């Protein structure tokens, strides 16, 4: 079985290739270029280095979200294009599930935190012993809520992700269970984790984990600001004001 995974949900652009439980390529880069500039050239490099025939892939894998809206879309649109061209299905993993899998094998709980800005983190809680298990589903919440939940669970925990630096003070003051932080080589999104976990899921759960490239879409976990405004307007019976543009920001090309 052969799976190519890509990563664009956060600070890291990444590509990995797994073939029959062997990781043949792993290429990660956090630079100041956008994923749009980095990602496909990295895929091209992996193909060249491995002399890979893309038609022999069984599936494509990606972190479907949460993450940076723009990053998720760059990854999604890229994988949709590749999937359309090769007629290959997609396995979309939760970004948090993939992050937690970085630490597979630990006895501790794993708590990936991603910086969601506006005083929130994207977070989940996982058990990575034996079969990976979701203890708390991905959510966008103030970090205090997650820390309270971890205190309630009462087990040792390892934190990782780009939400750690912004949450560090709160972790240090609020967490009552033993905790530690993942080392640098394990604490960011890794396409290799996505590739290996995708292979595992495809083997154990079968085709139910596959989605067609046409139907694949990111999971943002958050509505857009405009959709929230619309819901408020609907609740207050102010849809006319919304449509008159008094609530939405002016749209045209001054992006």
């Amino acid at each position: 079985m052969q799976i190519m995974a890509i990563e664009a949900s956060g600070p890291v652009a990444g590509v990995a290739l797994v073939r029959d439980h062997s990781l043949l390529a792993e290429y990660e880069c956090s630079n100041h270029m956008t994923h749009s500039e980095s990602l496909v050239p990295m895929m091209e490099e992996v193909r060249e280095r491995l002399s890979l025939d893309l038609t022999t892939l069984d599936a494509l894998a990606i972190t479907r979200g949460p993450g940076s809206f723009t990053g998720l879309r760059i990854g999604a649109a890229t994988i949709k294009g590749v999937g359309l061209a090769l007629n290959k299905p997609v396995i979309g993993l939760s970004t948090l599930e993939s992050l937690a899998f970085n630490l597979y094998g630990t006895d501790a709980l794993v708590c990936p935190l991603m910086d969601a800005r506006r005083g929130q983190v994207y977070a989940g809680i996982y058990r990575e012993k034996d079969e990976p298990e979701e203890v708390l589903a991905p959510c966008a919440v103030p970090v205090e809520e997650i820390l309270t939940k971890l205190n309630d669970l009462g087990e040792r925990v390892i934190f990782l992700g780009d939400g750690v630096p912004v949450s560090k003070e709160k972790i240090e003051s609020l967490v009552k269970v033993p905790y530690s932080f993942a080392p640098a080589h394990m604490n960011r999104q890794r396409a290799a984790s996505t590739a290996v976990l995708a292979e595992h899921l495809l083997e154990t759960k079968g085709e139910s984990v596959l989605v067609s490239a046409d139907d694949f879409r990111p999971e943002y976990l958050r509505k857009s600001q405009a959709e929230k405004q619309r819901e408020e307007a609907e609740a207050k019976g102010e849809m006319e004001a919304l449509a008159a543009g008094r609530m939405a920001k002016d749209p045209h090309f001054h992006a």
Partner: protein
Amino acid sequence: MSENVTILGIESSCDETAAAVVVNGRQVLSNEISSQIDIHTLYGGVVPEIASRKHVERVNQVIRTALKDAGKTLDDIDAIAVTQGPGLVGPLLVGVSAAKGIAFAKDIPLVGVHHIEGHISANFIAAPDLVPPFMCLVVSGGHTHLVIVKDYGVYEILGRTHDDAAGECFDKVARAVGLGYPGGPKIDRAAKTGNPDAIVFPQGKVAGSEYDFSFSGLKSAVLNYINTQRMQGHEINVPDLAASFEKSVVGVLVGHSMRAVDTYHADTFALAGGVASNSALRAAAKEACDARGIRFCCPPPILCTDNAAMIACAGYYEYCHGTRSGLDLNAQPNLPLRSMH
């Protein structure tokens, strides 16, 4: 010029997800457009984040439909042309990323296309015998450019707007009088029964630059008029206001264009962009061209709106010229129009 080059065009710069297959730049085999206008109408304008999300949901189906309607597969495609900019960055990135994914997976050459170059090129599809040079006015929701098309991909920009684009002005005025979004077609319809001489609005000229435009003064004048009328308790005659506003916009657009036509002795004048669908603008431009005995070109509305056939057409001429984009092609929301070679 290469024979039988088949180009897949992809366009996603604003709120239309579009794909098309075009042979040799001018023979349109398919032109699929998935509009999001119903969603954005709820908000009174295009919401970039929502537009971006919708593009991701629809991009594959739109490309598939374009290929199927053309009776082609990706194996028949010689190059992919994709709108690189200008436009909204989120929407642009979806088309660019999907195009690169396909180009990478199938080893198909990739050509990044300027959106305005696409609009100009719509004229090559609409008028199969049209060849440069000609004078072209590009007017849309995001752009107002008066351009000499010297050759394929070679432009001299004579004038542009200093502030709002013409189409933007239509949207704002339509919104202010409660016609809603999108403003262009709604003003056009309302103006048909109005008196264009009912209200005198200023024409958007720029001191010292005879081909540049400015629409913010006109926009303010219209908004002031509306406020004053409302404060005095007068009903606003929407058709009269629409017709008078349109007269002012069309007057300056056609006036500048014909001054350029006369100065540069152009024998052909073309309209392009979404606002080129405006019936008053088309009529006035045609009349002015007829009076001069020069050729007038204007694409049908389906090629004036954002579409991918025009992108494939522009991409074809770039492709023939040897232009190739790398897999690091990025969306460029403020990409300036300049000659590609």
